[in-house]
């Protein structure tokens, strides 16, 4: 056994990422490649992220004990070979694999990072996911449920986590996939697969789930814990076919053309209502399947805690129901999608293989690159906007809170960037939740996105129960609300007070901010609370349309220039568009 840090790597499908874990299990650095390449969902070998991780941590890549890749490419190619439609499609796949040396992961990592290829090892896709959830959770023992599109063959897997070990319990294999089921309807509803799933989730509250039962009847659950999904509406074969057949349109009417403008609330055309109803039905169906899988997992393992991972675990509405209806002992790894596989692969190597004791539960996902004062100063000097240095953090929070209370929209870039898709007060766009005008401003002039998309609230941990109906008001480390991964109702008597973050069904994807985990952001929300008596902020990811979250101060300055943001706080520097 070689001592030293371990690098986990995920790439080649979507959202490539690295995670650098110390030999004692501390997560030293974790980031998606897209933050540095500025290419959304970048799937290429994450060499930029790795090099920045080495630079940030001082780890010499030659000292790595191992580099663990999150899946087995040849097993994946074998599945493609078994399921592909015809020879020409398979030839196309092979041609692309050859052109990119995709199967030769050790060789590519060796060339890209200068790592000895003998130190490269490969885990399986679902085990990487499971490890990412279990080893970051606060639970000594837990059932682990992984749900995604497909890994090598598995689409759902159930594990028993105990101490340092993960033991497989049950699984479901391709093409019977809840993730692909959801993605097929994502495409049918005119959104991009692997990108638009959360838009379907956002559309759902506008519809009536009139087909939920029918959709649910397409799943048949087996005694071994797996399920089968009838395939007559779907075509998940690789090779470029749509993920659904003509039968889907025969049953549910024509699909929604991509890019169609969202209708006004007062005048919803019949087609749109049908699409809303379908989104609602798909969402409810998915929730029911997830609830059933989780209940089954707990029953089979005899445990009362559950960890979720895989892309489907980013469905925060479903997570909210698990939280309320099954068990409040729930942990969802913040980067639950494929990026998280990098973290899981590294953690598995340290804890399971090297038998190093587990660390405390993940309390913060500020695991990326840090922006410091010097970088902020250089970015401000290079820009064309007015800026000034604030003397201390107290002035910073009171000044930004005052602007937010006055209706301004502010970019907020502080410390290390977030791991996972959610902005949690490190790279956020912030606004007042008190009026819908701020929400519309952010939607239309800053994020340039569909008007139905809801915004999330950030609330201090102390005030959370006053504003939201939370399943567990203790909100321990690892609680899904700490990572904006669970939807809960806004308290009925508070909905009118924070309309900008209350979705049409009265829910919110709440982000509870802990003083110890995020002291500066916590102080900002408190300062806003002192101005308005509402310790809640509208919090959305800081990016420009089609771009990943900003990472560096320069990224933030560019986004600031390209949008109608009023102010930008980077470290202690406040940049504004006011003329001096």
């Amino acid at each position, binding site marked *: 056994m070689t001592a030293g840090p371990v690098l986990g790597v995920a790439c080649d499908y979507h959202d490539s990422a690295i995670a650098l874990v110390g030999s004692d299990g501390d997560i030293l650095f974790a980031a998606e490649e897209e933050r*540095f390449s500025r290419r959304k969902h970048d799937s290429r070998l994450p060499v930029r992220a790795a090099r920045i991780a080495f630079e940030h941590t001082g780890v010499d890549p030659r000292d790595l004990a191992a580099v663990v890749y999150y899946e087995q490419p040849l097993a994946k190619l074998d599945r493609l070979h078994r399921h592909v439609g015809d020879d020409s499609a398979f030839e196309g796949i092979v041609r692309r694999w050859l052109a990119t040396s995709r199967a030769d992961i050790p060789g590519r990592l060796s060339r890209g990072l200068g790592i000895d290829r003998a130190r490269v090892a490969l885990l399986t896709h679902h085990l990487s996911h499971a490890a990412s959830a279990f080893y970051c959770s606060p639970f000594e023992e837990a059932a682990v449920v992984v749900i995604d599109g497909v890994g090598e063959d598995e689409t759902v897997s159930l594990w028993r986590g105990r101490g340092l070990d993960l033991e497989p319990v049950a699984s479901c294999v391709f093409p019977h996939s809840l993730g692909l089921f959801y993605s097929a309807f994502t495409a049918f509803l005119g959104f991009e697969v692997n990108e638009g799933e959360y838009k379907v989730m956002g559309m759902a509250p506008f519809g009536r789930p009139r087909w939920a039962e029918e959709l649910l009847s397409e799943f048949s659950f087996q005694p071994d814990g797996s399920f089968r999904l009838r395939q007559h509406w779907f075509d998940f074969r690789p090779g470029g076919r749509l993920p659904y057949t003509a039968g889907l349109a025969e049953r549910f009417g024509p699909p929604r053309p991509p890019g169609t403008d969202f209708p006004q609330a007062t005048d919803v055309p019949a087609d749109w209502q049908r699409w809303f109803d379908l989104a609602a039905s798909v969402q409810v169906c998915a929730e029911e399947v997830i609830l059933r899988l989780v209940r089954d997992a707990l029953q089979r393992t005899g445990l009362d805690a559950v960890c979720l991972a895989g892309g489907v675990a980013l469905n925060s509405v479903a997570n909210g129901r698990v939280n309320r209806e099954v068990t409040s002992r729930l942990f969802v790894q913040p980067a639950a999608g494929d990026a998280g596989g990098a973290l899981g692969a590294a953690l598995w190597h340290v804890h399971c293989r090297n038998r190093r004791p587990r660390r405390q539960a993940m309390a913060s996902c500020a695991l990326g690159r840090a922006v410091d004062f010097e970088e902020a100063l250089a970015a401000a000097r290079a820009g064309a906007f007015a800026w000034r240095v604030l003397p201390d953090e107290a002035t910073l929070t009171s000044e930004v809170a005052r602007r937010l209370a006055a209706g301004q929209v502010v970019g907020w870039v502080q410390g290390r960037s977030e791991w996972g898709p959610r902005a949690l007060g490190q790279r956020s766009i912030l606004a007042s939740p008190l009026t819908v005008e701020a929400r519309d401003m952010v939607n239309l002039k800053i994020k340039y996105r569909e008007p139905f998309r809801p915004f999330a609230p950030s609330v201090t941990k102390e005030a959370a129960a006053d504003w939201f109906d939370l399943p567990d008001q203790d909100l321990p480390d690892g609680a899904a609300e700490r990572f904006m991964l669970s939807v809960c109702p806004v308290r009925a008597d508070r909905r009118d007070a924070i309309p900008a973050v209350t979705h049409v069904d009265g829910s919110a994807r709440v982000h509870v901010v802990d003083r110890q985990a995020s002291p500066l952001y916590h102080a900002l929300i408190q300062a806003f609370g002192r101005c308005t008596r509402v310790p809640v902020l509208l919090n959305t990811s800081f990016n420009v349309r089609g771009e990943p979250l900003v990472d560096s101060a320069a990224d933030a300055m560019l986004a600031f220039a390209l949008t109608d943001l009023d102010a930008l706080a980077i470290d202690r520097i406040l940049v504004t568009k006011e003329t001096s």
Partner: protein
Amino acid sequence: MAHRVDLPPGLRQSLADRAVASLEAAFGQADGVSIAFGRADGPVFNEPSYGDLAILLGQDWPTGDQLLAAAEAFAWTASDLARQRLDAWLSVVCSSRPTIVLWAAGIGREPSTLALWARMVAQRFRYWGKPIVVVDEGAAITVREQLAGGEVCTAMPADVAVAVLFLADSLVVPRELVEMAEAGRLWAADFVGQRLMKVQPTATGFRAEPDPTFARHLETHRFSRSAAKTGGGRIPFPFGDIRVFDNLLGPTDAFGHRIGGPLEDLASRTSFHLVIAVFGGSGAFGPRCFHDETFAARLERRLNALQLRRDSQPLRFTVLNFGRSGVAVLQEMIHFLLFCHRIRPEIVISHSGMNDLGLALSTDPYLLTAHDITYWEPEGAEERPLELSERDLDDMVSTYLRRLQQFHEIVQASGATFIHGLQPLSCVKQPSRQEKLGLIEFLRYWPDYRKAVSYHPRLVSALRRDLAQWAAGREEAYIDFNLPFSARGADATLFYDHCHLTAEGHALVADIYAKRLVRLIPAIPGRAPPPSRPRGVVLPDCGAVAEMSITTLAEAAEANGFAELASRLATMGTESGCTGPVGKSPFTYPLE
């Protein structure tokens, strides 16, 4: 014989607006009919040289009268022959609905661009009831994903009545399409971004059979022939690289320079005929602008319009645009050495800055710092980070200044006058709405540039500071274009994106160069003819070697226990004959 439809002079400037207005007038009143896109005030996309999309009509086919009205509106595009073809086309489409042909050749195309086309097609034609033909296997995958239910096929239906063609940058055109074009049944529209430029029979758009007069440079030499078969035309050349392609916005020569005519006569010109050679990157080349909209072409017109005289003889000016996208001063110098020794220009302009620093961001640190070498990152070298630190910035600027000084000295040694223009970047200017949208779209379609663009304010600041020092004592040799551009307000749209100029931007650059040259020209003597050029040598062809062959992949599958997969791969390799390079030992996976 291919036929080319040229636009009458004077119409190019407002062509897009006129086209959209004409189409809206023709189709705007019909139910369900609208222009798919083409608004001149919409966001622009990058990729200057190729048309993007040719869908002009809406979901419900318009009446014959409306189509004929459109034909009238399009009269400005067409020669007599083209009008005849348009009439023939209209007579066919009035009686039957067309099949839409998306010719989305994947070579060199961004997947996002393909997706964009497909989305637009899907929206407009999804209920058409006719198959959409995608003449590209690779693109068909994307198109199928995007069409969401529309029928897609990759073979040309026998009963196709007429097709609307999407121009792309492929060189391989199926025979069926060529036959349709020859029968006058196929039309193409050239778009620059979303701006409709012209509509014409597609025969002239086929790179496989390029217009013999317009695109003959593609066949000039072995490297131009090879370049013409690549996606973007860029190809290794024994002395750096060249980019040769069929530029729909004006002629280029056999090395990708925007020079339309032969240069032989210039070698023996009189001393009253001055030649100005403009070097630079795309900022000089002028993507998205017609040939006569570039600052080089404008400068030539302006100088000649001044009717300057020397010894009572009228002076004549020729401005040659050696601008090529993606080159730094080092490559400018190489092309100066290669192509100007016979012409011997009196004045050499290096209009640059952006590429030197942009390329330096991804240049190997040793080559940059030890040898002042910058280069265009080769294909597949995706794994080099773009990071900027103070040390890097100083290195980059120093490298640039040393190469600029070298170019200056070489030009001076040749007896010519050197001018360096620091090209403007959009970050120095209060952006107009169109500039803002243009930059957003650019960054969306070219995400690799996001980081580099975010550095621009620092880069410009450092460059301007150090260039001011460089220019001390030789002020006439230096123009900082960031100054006049920063003085223009948000009401002026001078940039298409982060650095490329609109026609208006090019006009401003030309004005400033013209003013400087008018001051300098009295002191610049004419040149004597150069010695004749020696013959060149033939060099071996260059080819890429794949990292991995199908044989090694099959062996790896076998070694890792995937016997059935290994067998299929081995069969594929045998049947296709594409076993690729051999000699690598199969690898096995160190499974956990």
